[in-house]
């Protein structure tokens, strides 16, 4: 009886509430420090969504623990639509599924709203690195196991899983895995020569590749990236099963009124379709993949199931 009353109150409140939503600025959280590819995509979207939603959309960075800090905060916000954030699949899923992380949230703690980008994984090095291609890198990793410092954007992120997949495809090749906090951190550390190889996503390196500062070794996708046409893909190099990518979408805490979710979906979808958004994302090397509603919900669930398998496999490995 209590729950029925609560549901009724919430719905009626939600309906009248949503009629005016939004009436004040919306916080859009990014679970990584500023400057990375998720962040850049978010800021571009936020600026354009201000027009379609009618209120400021403020990007807030909350990095840490490979995104767990930010997603923990997000799961605890009031589901009023004013606090939403980006979730990065499958990194998000592995956080939930890895018991050592002791995440206080799970897949049901969030309301998926709409997806923006699907960024394929990429392996890259500094432009003057001795590793000219993936073959060089693998050979070196076999010759000096556990010595080549290889960076990810977080524990059990898509990058981390990609490293483990490459190691599995080449027995004997072992990397010394270092976990940094986001793509911008990777960029400064690689350019500064403090670490040797980075596993990240295409969107993080396009500008630097164009400027000749970094070299992309391989793209972990079934087809070549239009932003890096000269970089081979893993199937081309004999690793057809090493496919990895990061999907970035917006979600809110669970319990958001349906009308509010709908309004946010409309606003963001319109913003994502805006030619300025399309152009700016292309300039930054980010591949747009809009998904909303039932499509995104299904993707969310599917990804979670797949990530469960990956997490199990990663945790069973002797070398992490």
């Amino acid at each position: 009886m209590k729950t029925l009353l609560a549901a009724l109150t919430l719905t009626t409140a939600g309906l009248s509430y949503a009629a005016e939503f939004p009436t004040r600025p919306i916080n859009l959280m990014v679970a990584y420090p500023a400057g990375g590819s998720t962040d850049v995509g978010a800021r571009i979207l936020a600026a354009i969504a201000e027009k379609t939603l009618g209120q400021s959309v403020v990007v807030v960075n909350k990095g840490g623990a490979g995104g767990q800090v930010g997603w923990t905060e997000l799961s605890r916000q009031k589901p009023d639509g004013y606090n939403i954030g980006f979730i990065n699949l499958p990194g998000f899923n592995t956080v939930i599924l890895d018991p050592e992380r002791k995440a206080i949230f799970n897949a049901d703690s969030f309301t998926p709203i709409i997806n923006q980008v699907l960024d394929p994984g990429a392996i890259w090095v500094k432009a003057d690195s001795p590793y000219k291609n993936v073959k060089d890198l693998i050979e070196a990793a076999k010759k000096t196991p556990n010595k080549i410092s290889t960076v990810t954007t977080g524990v059990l992120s898509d990058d981390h899983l990609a490293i483990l997949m490459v190691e599995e495809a080449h027995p004997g090749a072992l990397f010394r895995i270092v976990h940094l906090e986001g793509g911008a951190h990777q960029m400064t550390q690689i350019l500064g020569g403090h670490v040797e190889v980075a596993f990240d996503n295409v969107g993080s390196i396009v500008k630097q590749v164009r400027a000749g500062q970094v070299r992309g070794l391989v793209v972990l996708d079934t087809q070549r990236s239009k932003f890096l046409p000269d970089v081979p893909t893993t199937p081309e190099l004999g690793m057809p099963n090493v496919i990895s990518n990061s999907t970035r979408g917006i979600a809110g805490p669970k319990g958001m009124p349906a009308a509010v979710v709908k309004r946010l979906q409309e606003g963001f979808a319109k913003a994502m379709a805006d030619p300025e958004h399309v152009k700016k994302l292309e300039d930054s090397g980010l591949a747009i993949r809009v998904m909303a509603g039932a499509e995104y919900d299904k993707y969310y669930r599917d990804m979670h199931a797949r990530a469960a398998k990956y997490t199990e496999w990663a945790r069973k490995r002797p070398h992490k």
Partner: protein
Amino acid sequence: MDGLQLLLNGFAAALTLNNLVFALTGCVLGTLIGVLPGLGPAAGTAILIPLTFKLDATAAIIMLAAIYYGAMYGGTITSVLINVPGEAASVVTCLDGYQMARQGRGGAALGIAAIGSFIGGVFATLMLTVLALPLAKLALSFGPPEFFALMLLGICLVTGLAGRSLLAALAMTVFGLLLAMIGIDPVRGAPRFTYGIPELLDGVGFIPVVMGMFGVAEILITAESTRHTVIDTRLAAMLPSRAEWKRSAGAIGRGTLIGFFLGLIPGVGAIIPTFMAYIAEKRLSKHPEAFGNGAIEGVAAPESANNSYANASMVPLLVLGVPSSPTIAVLMGAFIINGLTPGPLLFAERPDLVWTVIASFFVGNVMLLILNLPLVGVWASILRLPTSYLCAGTLVFCIVGAYSLKGSTFDIAVMLVFGLIGYVLRKLDFPLAPTVLALILGPFMEKSLRTSLEMSGGDFSILFTRPISATFIAISATVLIVSTLRLATVRAMKQAETL
């Protein structure tokens, strides 16, 4: 000479009446944001972004940069007037700035802060103009071991704030470091020391703790006195005296340099250069005991360092595309939206726009000075309010500030608890600044150390084999040893006197 020509063109574009008006508006809005609690520069700047949509790219960026500088100065105003720092960068200014205000010299403090900020900002922008690309290389030389060592140095320099007891200062520092570990483990993600209180998952917030230990504690001490006093502020005390000018000159110079070099490194927060500049001045001064009691160098140095840092941190943004702080990240977003992609290609693809932006940094700094110097008198006159109203106002300010961080009364409770702790410790002459510094640096230190160990495969010697980090660690050790010896000597001398 190509650069010079471009810069001059940039000035021509920046100095149009239109753009000047935007710069001025930005400074005003920024100062107001800096003064208001709870609205950090990042949030405030972000909220004002829509205003810039109607403007062209140059004007928009000019205005946003002006808001940024303005906000830094706004933070200084509250530090001096009511001992509540607007943001991390202003914490150090509280130490001497507030004491000066209590002595009726608040105007002088604000004045020297404005001038120091101006000089720091202009110097940094000049250097940026001339040496942006080579400086960026310097910026990349910091890896996790260097970060850790730098922060360790900052912590050890804190012994300069030790007062009479090194042990007490170190204990306070360790306490701060432990507080910083409450929350989510930065590598593994598991909660630590949260005992099921969900609000603690985000850690003990720095702002409620500082507002408590500095603001509330101060008011509790004031509440003890039964007199209803008014601080005596004569007009002549509004400006720094000649002697104070002379003393500040060196402080401004050194603070500017320290702030500049640290600003080049992406990821170094604003608090490190301000603390280091302060400590450097204290060590070099002939009257170190004046620090903490209203020494004007104690305001001039951190303020110059602060603005120099702010301007220098544009280098990592413009050249590498890496923002050093949340507010710079907002600026980066604005750049991108307006067609400027910060990063290696920026100088090559749109030099005209870049030089206009750089010219506007100069303009912004000048504008800030012109705006704030005359207003110093207005701000300082707030100090003429009766103490009870000033304190009550500060408490209201702190309550709103703490609440609006996350819309939670938990932060008010944190502020209250630390206000009580700060009050008791102040009465016992325990230094509070080390705890605050440790609280801010703690998370970065731990993360840097653990990442360094990942890089070296668990080997601690990585800290000692890399030249920069080894140097910092050596200096840290030296500082600790020298401090111990110095205090021991002082004690021995005191004992000899009493014999």
